[in-house]
């Protein structure tokens, strides 16, 4: 029996053969990595779909229940609007992307929320209050930042 400090009789006794590493372990590792990556991707996609659905539901309720209002304070105090802002704390980029997309497709006025979340405001003073121009400015801003 070999003592701990005794040198091995041959190198093959303590090192796995090159063949073993190449043909099995690396392949298995790659397969596991690929599987993990696929699972992570699927999970992220599912999460993204979940966020999008929730965003759309909340946005529809918010738009319907505040459509008759003119006061920005009343509009922004709505629970669904606040819930969407809360969702941005976990995935800000995704929420900003959804807001810009919704602004473009449904003309829902996300201007204040977008400014709050992005610290940006591409709307010029001369365009204030002009829906078409404000939407255009934000959509352009989204394109420039890879969000559309």
């Amino acid at each position, binding site marked *: 029996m070999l003592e701990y400090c005794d040198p091995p009789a041959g190198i093959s006794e303590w090192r796995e053969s090159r063949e073993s590493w190449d043909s099995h372990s690396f392949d298995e590792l790659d397969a596991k990595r690929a599987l993990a990556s696929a699972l992570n991707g699927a999970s992220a996609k599912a999460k993204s779909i979940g966020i999008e659905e929730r965003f759309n539901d909340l946005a529809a309720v918010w738009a319907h229940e505040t459509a008759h209002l003119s006061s920005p304070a009343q509009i922004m105090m709505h629970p669904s609007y606040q819930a969407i802002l809360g969702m941005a704390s976990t995935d800000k980029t995704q929420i900003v992307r959804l807001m810009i997309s919704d602004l473009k497709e449904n003309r829902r*006025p996300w201007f204040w929320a977008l400014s709050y979340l992005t610290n940006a405001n591409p709307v010029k003073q001369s365009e204030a209050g002009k829906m078409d121009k404000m939407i255009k400015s934000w959509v352009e801003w989204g394109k420039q930042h890879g969000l559309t």
Partner: protein
Amino acid sequence: MPQVLRSSTVIKSHFCALFPRLASAEWSIKSPKDDRYQCIAWAACRTHIRWWPVSGHPTVHWPPGAPLDDSVDAFAESFSRLGYERCTGAIDDACSRFEIGYQKVAIYATSDRCVLHMARQQFFGKGWLSKCGSLEDIQHADLRSIEGDPSPLVAALGQTYGEVAAILRRSWWSALTRFCLFRCAWAALKFWTYRKKHGQWRV
């Protein structure tokens, strides 16, 4: 599309749910649903821009130099730049009546005098015109038809326009010199054409 045409049945049920007093009042729909302007802009005879006093963030227009405050007094002062002055007297009586030679607007607010809505008297005094947020422009026979609970808490939930807190008036001459009569007439003609083209809305 900024303008959306909804059926009169849908509009009626939506408005009566929002303003229960309309169910028993005389009112009609004047314009399609349009998100490009709202009540304050419509009171100022504008149909392409949204007005509200908000400081430091250009998402709504407000006349330069006018007070950036949503109190009734601040709105009255801001509208004084368009030639309006406060009507004296009781809101229900002389103030809300039609006076030849004057154009009038009414300010709706909460009990703590935070403005929520404005309506403009029809040019010949046939009622009051209200552009309800992004929804349709309606004409209601009296100011009380769209009033609701003036409590600030209910207002915070977006469920009321509160009550009429002030009525302002200006002379037709003052409106004429600011091109407002022309703007109102142009918008009225545009909406009339729209109604003729798409069928009269009856509620």
